[in-house]
Structures are given as C-alpha cells and as structure tokens.
C-alpha cells in the first residue's frame, strides 16, 4: 500500500497517481508496441479486432459509463463512420484525412440526433436509441446510391505515406494504425475526464438535479457527450470497415448495438479499463469457445459438435452471471482483489457493499 498525499488540486488531476503506476502503463504500452513481433498474423488480427472493439467501447463508455445515458443504438453510429469513411475514400479523399473526417461527421450526426432524443430519460432513451439502430439499417438500404444498398460496400485500400496497407497484406501496419487511433482516443478521453467538461458529465450521471444546481447546462452537456461518444464510435466503425474488408447493413445490425452495451457492462461501467476488459472478452470469446469445443469433442469423442448461436448464448450467460454477482464488472472485481492485497489483512467484506435502495416510479417526476 502506498499512501499518496495530495497537497494541491494538481495532485488530484495528475495522469498517474504515482511513479510506479506510470511504469506499469509504460510497460503495457511497450508490450502493445512489441505485439506484432510476439504473435503470428492470425492472432495479431484478433488483437487488432480487440483494439477496434476497445475504441468503440470507449465511445459508449463515455456516454453510458460517465454521463449515465444508456444507448442501445451505437451500431448506427459505427455504420455512419464506416460508410462516410468508405464513401469519401472512394471519391478520392486520402485515408489520413478521411478517417478523422469520418469521426467528425459521425460526431456531428450524433449531436443532431441527440438533441431531440436526449430529452428522454432512462428507459425511454434506451428505447429511442434502439429505434435509431433499427432505422439506421433500413436507411442504409434506402440510400443505395451512397451505400450500395443490400450488397454493401468494399472498403477501399488504404494508402499511407506511399505504402499500401490492408488487413491481410500488411497486418502489422494495420495493427499500428489501429493502435495510434486507440491511443489518440484514449489520450483525449483521459484528458477529458480531468477537465471541467468531464466532471460535468459525471455530475449529470450522479444526479441531474444537483448538476443543474451547480450550473451545468444539462441539455447542452448531454448533447456534447453524445457527440463525442459518437466520434469515437465512428472512428471504430471506420476501422471496422477496413478490418472486415466489405460490409453492408447487416454488419451494423441491432445485435451489434446490444453487444456493445453488454461489452462495457461486463468490463465495468464507469471506467476506461472496463472498455478494454470488455473488448477482450468479446474479442477472444469466439476463440475460447472454439478451443473449448475441440477439447470437449476430443474428450468425449463426439466428433465436431456445432451448435448454432452458441457464442451469443454463452456471452449472455456470462453477462447474467456478472450482473447478478459482480455488477461492477471485471474492473470492479479487479479493484476488489487489489484492495484486498493492498489492505491485507484489514479488508472487510462490506467495503464495496451497495447501499440498500428502493425504487420510486419515474412516472411522477
């Protein structure tokens, strides 16, 4: 256990709590940079997938984890990012300009959508965003001249500094592009949380009434949060488009929206770490199930046993277990384990116990 004495406000908003913590993250960064030389191409592709999920997860985490607004429609914004990026590149915009522009446009679209929708609360908001996700699928089909309709679009090849980058041709280069985008989003996110705007987000999550009393403009702050969240999600969508190679309206269906939300809940709401943990679960689960299937079939001699839809089923089961037994997600469990060792032998069971609470109806507000 280290005791950090905070002597000024600057101490409170520093990037790292102490030097050792900084070391840990630098080691992690070094590991991420060295990854292409440690893994073969297949697993590097999987790692890239996890990074893309983590970018999208950070986007949704900002909105749901830090501003407290649940969205079941973020696949729609991934679609906006993917399509604007691909369409611009087809019209000759270079990748290095198209990617940030795709993020920006998604952010603007998100803010515009947010203005009417964010007047709703809690459950109504979830349903309205769900409708947006369903609508987006149909709109993609209708807007055929841009989106290619049902047959979808193929992401054009990336040209960067005179180099051809594609997922299968040069997986290492694609991995580094994803990593750079991820670090940029992470940097912006972490900084945002230290800034007044990020504090305003947290205030809205914890109590809208108190936030308003402290002078936070609720409607505007929520819309900004939605816009920023959509920007990150749009970037992830653009990268996903390149990662998948070709995509159509079914790539960004409602199930993807739900998966995004479930991912950050499993990871742990309200922490950046949670987005990464959740991304790892969702990225590696299909592999784990495939390996588990091989093991069981070789143990019992069942031959190749395939059950359709088992991924979604297992994923949902994990989620149910987490909500019931560890509502704070993987990050919450990690926090508890760490506290246990830091305080050893003074850890008490009730330290993370939630206060008993009772619901009141939202219909009389």
């Amino acid at each position: 256990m280290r005791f950090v004495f905070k002597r000024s406000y600057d101490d409170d908003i520093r990037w790292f709590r102490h030097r050792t913590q900084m070391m840990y993250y630098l080691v992690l960064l070094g590991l991420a940079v060295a990854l292409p030389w440690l893994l073969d191409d297949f697993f590097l592709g999987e790692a890239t997938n996890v990074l893309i999920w983590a970018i999208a997860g950070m986007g949704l985490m900002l909105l749901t984890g830090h501003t407290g607004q649940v969205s079941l429609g973020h696949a729609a914004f991934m679609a906006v990012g993917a399509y604007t990026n691909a369409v611009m590149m087809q019209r000759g915009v270079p990748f290095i300009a198209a990617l940030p522009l795709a993020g920006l446009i998604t952010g603007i679209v998100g803010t515009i959508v947010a203005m009417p929708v964010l007047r709703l609360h809690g459950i109504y908001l979830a349903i309205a965003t769900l409708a947006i996700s369903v609508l987006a699928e149909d709109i993609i089909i209708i807007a055929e001249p841009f989106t290619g309709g049902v047959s979808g679009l193929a992401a054009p090849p990336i040209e960067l500094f005179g180099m051809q980058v594609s997922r299968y041709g040069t997986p290492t280069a694609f991995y580094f592009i994803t990593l750079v985008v991820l670090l940029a989003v992470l940097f912006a996110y972490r900084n945002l949380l230290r800034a007044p705007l990020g504090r305003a987000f947290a205030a809205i999550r914890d109590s809208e009434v108190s936030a308003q009393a402290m002078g936070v403009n609720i409607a505007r702050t929520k819309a900004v949060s939605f816009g920023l969240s959509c920007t990150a999600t749009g970037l992830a969508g653009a990268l996903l488009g390149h990662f998948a190679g070709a995509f159509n309206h079914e790539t960004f269906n409602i199930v993807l929206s739900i998966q995004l939300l479930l991912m950050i809940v499993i990871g742990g709401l309200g922490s950046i770490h949670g987005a990464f943990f959740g991304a790892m679960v969702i990225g590696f689960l299909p592999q784990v199930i495939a390996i588990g299937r091989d093991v069981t079939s070789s143990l019992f001699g069942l031959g190749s046993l395939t059950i359709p839809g088992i991924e979604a089923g297992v994923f949902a089961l994990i989620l149910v277990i987490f909500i019931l037994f560890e509502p704070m997600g993987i990050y919450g469990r990690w926090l508890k384990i760490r506290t246990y060792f830091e305080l050893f032998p003074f850890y008490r069971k009730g330290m993370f116990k939630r206060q008993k609470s009772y619901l009141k109806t939202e219909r009389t507000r």
Partner: protein
Amino acid sequence: MLQLVVSGLANGSVYGLIALGFVLIYKATEAVNFAQGDFMMMGAFVTIWLANSHYLGLDFWVAVPIAIVIMAIAGYLLDLLVVRRLFGQPQIATVILTIAIGFILRFGAGAIWGHEPQWLETPFAGREVRMFGLVLGLEEVAVVIVTLILTWSLFLFFRRSKLGLAMQAASQNQLAAYYMGIPVKRIQSLVWALGGAVAAVAGILFASKGAVDPSTGLLGIKAFAAAVIGGFGSLPGALVGGLIIGLVEPFAAYALPAGYSQVAPYAIMLLVLIFRPAGLFSQVQKKKV
C-alpha cells in the same frame, strides 16, 4: 381494402399483446422486460410442442391451458431466482439482464426445437367466417376477440382488484408499499407470472396465424414501439399502440416504395417520443412542489 384492415388488426393485436406484457411488468415493478418477445416465442414453442401431432399431440384445448400455466410458472421462477436479486437497483440493470435472458432463451429454443419455422395445428385453421359481406379467416377474428377480452379484463384487474392496486402501489414507491404491508417482492414475482401467461397467449395466437422460429422474439422490438406509442404504463394504450402499428404496416407497404414500409412503425414511435414523450395515453404527472 377492408381485408387489409382486418389482417392489420390481427397483426396489431399480437403486437398489442406483447406490448401488454411489457406494460404489465413495467406497471408493477418499474422494470422493463426486454425478453418479452422471446417469452412469446417460448410460449408459442411450448404450445407447439404440446399440441402438434409429431410432438406430444395433445388436444388443442388441453394444450393451451397447460402451456399458459407452464409459462406463468416460468415467469414466476425467473423473477424468484434471477430478477429479484436486482431488487431496488436502477432500471437499466434489469434492462441489460433481460436482454441477456432474451439471448439465452433464443439460443435455448434453437437448441431444443431447431431453427426451422414451425406452425401450430389449431382446430380453426383454414376456416372462414362471413361477416358484413367479407370473408375473414377464423383465426384472425379469434386473435382480435381474445386480445380485446384479455386487455379489458387486465384493465379491470388493475383498476378494481386488491391485488392489482397493490401491484400499482408497489411500483410507485417500493418503500411506502412495504410500510402499507404489501409483500412487494412476492407481488413482483406474481406479476412476472402474469407476464409469462400473457406472453403464452400472445405466442399461441401468433403461432396459429403464422410460422414461428427462435428469432421471432425480435418482434418484441416492434411491440416496444407499440408500448411507447400508447404510453408505457397504460394497458389500453398498449393495445391501441399495437393496433396503430399493425394498421400502419400493411398500408405503408401498400402506399410507399419497398424499403420505406419497415421504417414506418419506428418513425411514428420517434415522432411520438419527441412530441409527446410520455405517449398518447400519458401516465406522467409533474410533481407539484
């Protein structure tokens, strides 16, 4: 044209019934059961399993009550064993939990009954009624009548009976309901049982009209639109919302180019949400200070 209206009404009744399930559970527990559509799918499959000749082959009129009872027990147990653990937590926790349960039900139904579409063998399949110079399918008329009766009796149940009032009280303020001697948790389990039973009825009606497969539960999203249009928390509102969507769908398909018609229900819902956020039959009252 009138044919279109009647089939729209019949479709709308099924949406309305699923929406009724949402509203029931919302009205009494303040939680939203995102798995209601999958409940309906399970109800349909349980009935098919009981009644169809290549499964158990029971008589239709024996199979229906058994299916309803099975689904009611399933609803009760689900609350008792799983959902109750989230008692007093924010709504959104239940939302996420029920989404996950929906996934599991879809996976389970697919593993047990396969992914092929199946039909329910009913005694009134293919028969016709002549009314006002129209030829209508008997099952469509039955769907509309059953839905109306069910909605009306549930409405009376919430308005008049002691249990119904206790359910409303339990949702409005859990702590206050406890003080008034209402066993809030047991009431909640009961309402989940009721939700399961309503889902079973919806499933039976749906399966007698058309094919069911495990992803039928996604129909629940449309039923959401219905519940929201009617105003979450209002039983007649849910039915009206369902009927509106049921009617809009065929006419949108008739009048608009292909592709636009699927958008119509959700577009209506978004408009209602934006201009009348609490729905047509609003339950929201501003608190006076």
